[in-house]
């Protein structure tokens, strides 16, 4: 039986508070919404096509399929 995993959520909140950064559940929810919205915006067909074009222009290989 493996040892219980430390709760990363609590760990990070406590670690941040120790250096004077006090985050709230509401702020975390907002950050979550921002991350999710950005990921969604990047995954539209138009965004994927634009990024593929940009990768080619910068000399990057095509992105691996998800």
């Amino acid at each position, binding site marked *: 039986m493996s040892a219980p995993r430390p709760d*990363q*959520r609590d*760990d*990070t*909140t406590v*670690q*941040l508070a120790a*250096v*004077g*950064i*006090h*985050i*709230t559940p509401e*702020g*975390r929810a*907002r*950050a*979550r919404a*921002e*991350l999710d*919205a*950005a*990921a969604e*915006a*990047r995954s*539209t067909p*138009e*965004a*994927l096509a*634009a*990024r593929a*074009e*940009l*990768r080619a*222009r*910068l*000399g*990057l290989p095509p*992105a691996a399929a998800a």
Partner: protein
Amino acid sequence: VSDAEVRLVLDTSAIAAFARGSIHVGEVLAEIADEDAVALLPLSCLVEAVHGQRFTSEEDARVDLLVGHPATEMLADDPQMWRSLAYTYDLVGSADAAAAGLAAIEYGVSVLSRYPSRYAGLDGGGRLVLPLDE
């Protein structure tokens, strides 16, 4: 970079903001940690954010926390991508922003930045930049 899912790139302005105590960056970091994912810290952004600063001990402690946190990974430039980095530099105007922008494109994620306009030349309609609160 490890096998952890990359969720975001922190540019120079985001790293500097965290050193100054940005709650917004802290919230984002906590959410990424909760996913067992990582935010990338391009080496040149870290150097640019820290050099010449006279950080207080608390600000230094924040930088140490950020660099050592399991939800971040430092990213050095890949020598084989030097030409892509140079092209990106042409579009964003600085080596550190080029490293952040190219990493975001390479990993298919966004850059957290206080200065979204710096990346305008790279944004082909896909929300390359997540704006950081003032």
